[in-house]
């Protein structure tokens, strides 16, 4: 996005400050990110293509046997979703850092914490949600039993929101670093493990015919905890990266 437009939009944000409407600032940030991604659809499509491609590698690498694939499908779909989400994280703050928009956000009268939430929400809408919508197709590729596909989608919708929030911390910490993306995976993947456990656990339970709700409830609890803690950590990390 050209710099002039960035400053114009940030000016819009600053003007609305006078009215003390945080909601407007949040909406503007969200719209801005959604627009930017609409103009560069590659950034949205790449993680999705990666997701589909990586999932289709497993039958080739392991075995095309449907019975074998069905056993591994929940784990494979979730691990690959983790990696696809990771792939998209580096771009979360990168361009805003490079063109100075982040500094403008920091200078604006609104809390950086709230604006960071809006940015993460846009990221989730354009990576996590499409991944969840695409998952049924990939489930079919891996011979996932039909009755568990709804649970797969639900677990991905809930889980990927946590992934975006937790990943936002890593992205904010590494955005100022020249080779940050390698470090990013080291920082973020260990923190993703609880989401992975309950996400693939939900799908496995659905296949076995066990109770699914406890797993989904845990995913919801993780999301609630991430919503409470991650925005502050993201804002603090962005401040460090901008100064650093």
């Amino acid at each position, binding site marked *: 996005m050209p710099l002039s437009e960035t400053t114009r939009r940030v000016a819009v944000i600053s003007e609305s400050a006078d009215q003390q409407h945080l909601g407007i600032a949040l909406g503007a940030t969200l719209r801005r990110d959604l627009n930017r991604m609409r103009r560069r659809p590659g950034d949205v499509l790449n993680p999705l293509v990666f997701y589909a491609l990586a999932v289709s590698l497993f039958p080739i690498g392991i075995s095309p046997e449907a019975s074998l694939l069905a056993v591994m499908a929940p784990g494979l779909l979730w691990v690959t979703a983790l990696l696809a989400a990771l792939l998209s994280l580096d771009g979360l703050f990168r361009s805003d850092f490079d063109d100075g928009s982040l500094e403008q956000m920091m200078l604006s009268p609104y809390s950086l914490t709230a604006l960071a939430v809006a940015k993460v929400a846009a990221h989730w809408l354009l990576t996590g949600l499409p991944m969840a919508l695409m998952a049924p197709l990939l489930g079919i590729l891996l011979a996932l039993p039909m009755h568990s596909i709804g649970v797969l989608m639900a677990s991905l919708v809930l889980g990927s929101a946590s992934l975006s929030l937790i990943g936002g911390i890593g992205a904010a*910490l590494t955005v100022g670093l020249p080779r940050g993306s390698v470090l990013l995976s*080291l920082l973020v993947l*260990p923190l993703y493990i609880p989401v992975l*456990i309950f996400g693939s656990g939900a799908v496995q339970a659905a296949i076995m015919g066990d109770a699914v709700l406890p797993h989904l409830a*845990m995913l919801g609890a993780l999301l609630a905890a991430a919503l409470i803690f991650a925005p502050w950590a993201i804002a603090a*990390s962005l401040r460090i990266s901008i100064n650093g």
Partner: protein
Amino acid sequence: MWGLIHKLGSPKWFYQLSTRLQPWCWGAAVLLLVTGSVWGLFFAPADYQQGNSFRIIYVHVPAAFLAQSVFVAMAVAGLVFMVWKIKLADMAAAAMAPLGAVMTFVALFSGAVWGVPTWGTWWMWDARLTSMLILLFLYIGVIALRGAFGRRDSGARAASVLAMVGVINIPIIKYSVDWWYTLHQPASFTLTSKPAMPLEMWLPLLIMVLGFYCFFIALTLMRTRSEILRREAKAKWVQTLIEEAR
């Protein structure tokens, strides 16, 4: 109270205090470790099921204890550094991180060695081994992040944030991994409830745990002191110290 905290936060004062404390910590560490090892390895009775191989516990459990508490200590130091801008806290956090990582590795390695006689395999995806492995990755992440920043202050603050994020996540990771799978024998040693082991096995373990903690404190003091000297090399009191040493 506040006066004391600010006084403690001054590198010079801490350096002088730790000069006096350090020998005591080393003395206690060596005494406890030697007593505990000799007692545990030679005099404690062999386990009726595992035989002599259970003696790995005298290294494994203290290392695992330290691995977890060092991370908490590091996060607390990070919080102190972020909130009150006490640079000394960050020097201590920087000194602690590699020690914690090494302790985590020692716990993992001794656990793997212990696994051969008891489980018949080097590695098992058991809940505690798994969460230890994740802890090791968290440590490596904190160390790598600190090193990645060009400016020391930014690296310090980034590492502090990550340590705090990690410390919130450790219980979540631990419980989710426990929930995921558990094969490990139930906890053999807790401070709150009566131990399941006989006293003559349990006492040397307690001594070893205390010894490991003293060793860790002594080593942290030593490393923090060298960090102080490195960062304050241009300060007048350090220059005088160097002059005196000559």
